[in-house]
């Protein structure tokens, strides 16, 4: 769907992107992670052709990025706004038509979406009379009216209450079902684990990590297992710092160069194993770890 190679961009002396490669397959939800100022927004702006890259290439569906792609991309920026004095209906119509929809088609789709999202009574309301959450919904719909093949969402959940965030999440998953590719830029790791199939992490203008969620997690396995034993046959070494609870001993054990099977065999000598579970890092832990370790470089 989206192929980016050796993308570079700098503002004067400041590098925003350094040799960034990215491959986003069709139909996935792709998480774009990274701390503030890492270069995510610059990357998104370049894909949206708001600004030009200094060097590098971008291809969408195998063709070089060009103005004809504008109607194929939907973009919800992090800082977003609507015309305060404009009516919901007029506003949606304006955005949809700017993306290349005909008047008739745009009206049909807006009616459909207002109905679907239970917002039919808002159409004649001015944006300044809407609550923040309502305005966000209007904004979200405006972004997808033209049925983009690639949807770029920058912090889509900020500003939503939990109920509306859930609605938006469902909509994103529904869009994915339809084969739409979604790039989700966010700091909120719980939504990344929940929604994303693949992720890439950018820090200090460089891509430092990418792959499917499983691959990323695998490569960050600390090789620690959580173990529970019962019916202890011989005392456990003190260095294991095991804690007893209702006849069960719980502790964590690193592999220390052994295979899991070897560790398991060793543990069997101490008692009956009731739990043997590998510790999987959360995306949040990986994120923090990565940012910290690159800060020490």
């Amino acid at each position, binding site marked *: 769907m989206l192929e980016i190679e050796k993308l570079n961009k700098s503002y*004067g002396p400041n590098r925003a992107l350094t040799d960034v490669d990215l491959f986003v397959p069709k139909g996935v939800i792709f998480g774009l992670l990274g701390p503030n100022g890492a270069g995510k927004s610059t990357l998104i*702006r370049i894909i*949206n*052709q*708001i*600004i*030009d890259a200094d060097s590098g290439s971008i291809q969408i569906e195998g063709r070089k990025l060009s103005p004809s792609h*504008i109607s194929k*991309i939907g*973009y*919800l*920026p992090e*800082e*977003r*706004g*609507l*015309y*305060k*004095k*404009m009516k919901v209906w007029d506003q949606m119509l*304006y*955005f949809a*038509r*700017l*993306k290349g929809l005909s008047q008739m088609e745009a009206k049909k789709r807006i009616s459909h979406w207002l109905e679907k999202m239970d917002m039919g009574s808002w159409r004649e309301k001015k944006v300044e009379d809407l609550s923040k959450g309502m305005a966000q919904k209007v904004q979200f719909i*405006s*972004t997808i009216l033209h049925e983009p093949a690639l949807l770029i969402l920058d912090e889509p959940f900020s500003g939503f209450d939990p109920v509306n965030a859930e609605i938006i999440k469902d909509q994103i998953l529904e869009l994915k079902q339809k084969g739409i590719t979604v790039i989700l830029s966010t700091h909120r790791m719980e939504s990344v684990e929940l929604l994303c199939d693949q992720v890439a992490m950018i820090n200090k203008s460089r891509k430092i990590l990418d792959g499917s969620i499983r691959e990323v997690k695998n490569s960050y396995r600390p090789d620690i297992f959580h173990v529970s034993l019962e019916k202890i046959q011989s005392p456990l070494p003190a260095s294991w710092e095991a804690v007893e609870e209702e006849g069960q001993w719980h502790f964590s054990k690193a592999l220390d160069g052994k295979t899991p099977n070897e560790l398991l065999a060793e543990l069997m000598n101490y008692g009956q194993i009731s739990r043997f579970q590998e510790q999987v890092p959360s995306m949040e832990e990986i994120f923090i770890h990565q940012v910290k370790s690159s800060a020490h470089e």
Partner: protein
Amino acid sequence: MNKIWLVIQREYLSRVKKKSFLLATLLTPLIFPAIMAIFIWIAVEEKENQALRIIEVVDENDLFFLESSEQYAFSFSSRSVDEAKDMVKNGDRYGFLYIPKINLEKPEGITYYGEENPNMNLISYLRSSLKKKIEDQRLFESGIDPEILSQIRTSVDVKAITLDEGGGERVSDATVNYAIGFIAGILIYMFIFIYGNQIMQGVIEEKSSRIVEILVSSLRPFQLMMGKIVGIAGVGLTQLLIWIVLIGTLTTLVTGILGMQMPQQQAMELAQGEMTQAVPDTEMGEILAVINGIDFVTLVASFVFYFLGGYLLYGALFAGIGSAVEAPSDAQQFMLPVTIPLIVAYMGLFVFVLQDPNSTTSFWLSIIPFTSPIAMMGRISYGVPFWELGLSMGLLVLGFLGTTWLAAKIYRIGILMHGTKPSYKTLWRWIKSSY
């Protein structure tokens, strides 16, 4: 192209549909005829209700005679000065003119006493009557018969004919040309300021509310900027058109109604002030001839051209400024380079162009693109050589292409910049950068 059209439509409709636009558009032209009607009404009332003012004249030379008018009657007597002064104080007389024995070669000591400050009309009437009498007397004393003198006095009227390049002639009149230049110049000046500011406000609104990020993901910043400038120009033209139609109809209506209530001649005199009172009826015909002599096609065409050209040139600059700041109050620091040429053009219109349309200064003011929209309108009704008009228009086109190019460079970066207040140095860096 299609997208610019969408922006133009939105900018145009969102403004024209506003109640405030409707109100301003409909009420402003009502104000002019209303003021005119009030003035005429007051003048008529005043004239009808005015009591005759009697002025006591004591002439120790027994020489002068003052003709009474509808407003003033002159009563000649040989009362003493104190007695006459008392009459004024008692209210028996409106004023008292004292003419002591005077030396005709060097008349001194003529005094007017009054309870209230005498108005200009009265004083100038007294002055001119006395002056004429003294001059006649002196001519008579030097042996010239006043009869012959009045025969010699002739009224001279210089008719101005402008020869155009095609060999045709047209009657021209400085006053009419002045008025046309004056009105056209001021309209353009006001239009640039009012609508230029609207452009700036619009850009700031889109920037500060962050709508712009979504917009520029759908179209080029240049399209957005041009769409806004053109859309707002449409609003201005609409307003102007409505005004012209409304003012035209209303003025005709008001003068028509008032005209029925009083003789035509009187209405004319009142409407046009004292000036026409002294001139013969043929003056009206001459003014009409002058108006007929004006090449309206050229005038209207060039008005529309300079109206739009000036607006586009400055409009782009206003858009550039709007994109660089986050609030209208921050815009002040960049306004100076825009306001100064405008004010120079405006002042130049009055100080140079309307006084002497063909002077060197007037020429340059009407050629340089930053001042030409206002200055050239001051010259156009006097007749401008074709090559000058062509040069001025050509340069104006280059001028607005130039400012648009410059503004677009600032705009495409400015609209995405938040948090920092730019200086002229930053703007210059934006202009140079390729982004």
